């Protein structure tokens, strides 16, 4: 491999890596701007990530859905995609239907998650992982958010894309917006 080829490789590698990072920022900003807004009820728990430090895990109520409360369409296995159709009539959005594929003519916004545990029997709980279950913050702020847990009136505002993916747009306590995510 000649010196010139390696130098060219260096420039290509640097550009590729920069492009990847820039694309992540751009995609997130576009999705945040264009998505449909949904408010979910949540609590906070303060754990730590190996690479990204402290965060508050969002203890989302829709992460654990009693099977008797929703219509279930399909057979879900571990890590399968699961679409959660929401009813936004109340203050906090509530799940109404779980489907394997994106539902036809949904009445409300639809969230995409991954099946953690599922059962078709009555009184069972559907456990679902969502990709917006973490809010990164420094240690003090993470603990402060966690301490609001007892009040159980915490909300997370999401921006939901047409394919069901969502990202955090803001946080609320007792209906008041305490944090709004800047675009950049």
């Amino acid at each position, binding site marked *: *491999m000649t*010196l010139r080829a*390696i*130098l060219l*490789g*260096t*420039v*290509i*590698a*640097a550009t*590729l*890596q*920069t492009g*990847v*990072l820039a694309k*992540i*920022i751009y995609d*997130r900003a576009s999705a945040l701007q264009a998505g449909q807004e949904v408010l979910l009820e949540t609590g906070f728990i303060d754990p730590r*990530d190996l*690479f*990204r*430090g*402290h*965060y508050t895990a969002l203890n989302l109520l829709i992460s654990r859905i009693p099977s008797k409360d929703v219509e279930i369409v399909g057979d879900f296995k*571990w*890590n399968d995609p699961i679409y959660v159709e929401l009813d936004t009539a109340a203050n906090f959005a509530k799940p109404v239907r779980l489907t394997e594929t994106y539902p036809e003519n949904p009445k409300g916004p639809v969230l995409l998650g991954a099946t953690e545990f599922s059962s078709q029997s009555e009184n069972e709980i559907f456990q679902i992982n969502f*990709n*917006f*279950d*973490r*809010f*990164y*913050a*420094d*240690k003090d*702020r993470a603990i402060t958010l966690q301490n609001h847990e007892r009040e159980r009136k915490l909300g997370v505002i999401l921006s939901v894309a047409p394919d069901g993916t969502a*990202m*955090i747009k803001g946080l609320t306590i007792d209906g008041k917006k305490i944090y709004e*995510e*800047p675009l*950049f």
Partner: protein
Amino acid sequence: MAIWNQKSILKTAVDDWQSRGLIDTTTAVTLSSDIGQTTSSFAFRNILILLAVICLGFAAMTFVAANWDEMTRLTRVGIIFAAMWASWGASAVFLSRGQSWFAQIFTLGACAMFGAGIMLISQIYHIQGNPADAVWLWAIGTILAAGLTRSIPALCLSIALFFIWMNYEWNFFGRDFDLHFDFPIYMAACAALAYWMKTRFAAHLIVLATCYWALGIVFIQLDQKSLMHFSIVLGTAFSVLSLMLYSDRVYLWLRGFERAVAFYIIGVLGVLVTAWHFISIESRFEREMFPLLFDFIPAAVIATAICCILAALAFRRKHENTYDLVATAIFAAITFGLILFAPGTNFTTEALMLAGSIWIIRMGWRIEYRPIAALGFIAFGGAMLLIYFETIGSLLGTSIFYLVAGVMLLTGVFLIPRLTKTAGADK
């Protein structure tokens, strides 16, 4: 040749040859000065710079993890971008000056900054997804950079990242697993780069990571009462061991790395045979397991056939490793035979372990690779301890243990020096 770490061995050898009159004083002085020239303190400086760049990488990662809010988001992102480009710039500068090793190290630094960038951006913008996906993206970006710039440190980082990614996805305490059958594909890509860059350190990492993955899927599947992967990994291990012995000394398909691969494969075989021992003596599991033994038949047939074919070829071509290739085929046949026809029979696997450990010691001596001989001694000690713990429950058992131990030790005392002499004569 990495001669710097063998300086004292060479100097001692030259002094010895001179004292015994094998070489004259002039030759001894010439050789000693050549050894001195080949070795330099520069190599150690390289290591220090590598360690410094690793420290800087960790500094960047902990900067990200600290969630420092005193700066604006864009400033923090800007710092990471600047650090990444500074590292790439340093790499290009060193490369243009012909200092390839420094260039490679700074490529590593740039890749560390790339990873820090992924983590920082996903943290400050709350982009989560699957955490393992972020590590995978980092690994892909790093292996591409390693290939494009021919950087060995970056290749090693990408191997480590693929390893972390694979472990991220494994939940040994959960019900469901992704066995990551794509992991060997990534390791194969890394192996191709390691072969191209002629790096043994990366090759060691690749083989270690692949052995860990192979044993991981065996134990995950065992937990789910399946022996399919056990049989495949056992058969593959015997086949690869035969291939390595066949390539060793004559064909050198892996440029002399065959012995190191054989060492790791013997380790895998040791773990598998020990695991089988514990599985087969547990009668509770054995009853459930009998129908599952059919899983072993394809692997037993294919692996034994490969080992026999290579042994026959070696015999025909008067290969220097014929003895060990024949022994490998015999051990493969015996191991699969015991699994299929004598599961749960007392002292069969223990006898296999003892015989196997002596064969490994012998192999290490024959092919002049001490780590394999050392592994054989460790296996011998482990097998003896295993027998001790299993027979300690009854006086008769303990007595049999002492009898066997005594016979084995006496055999060892008289046989091992003879084997050593024979190995010396074989050279």
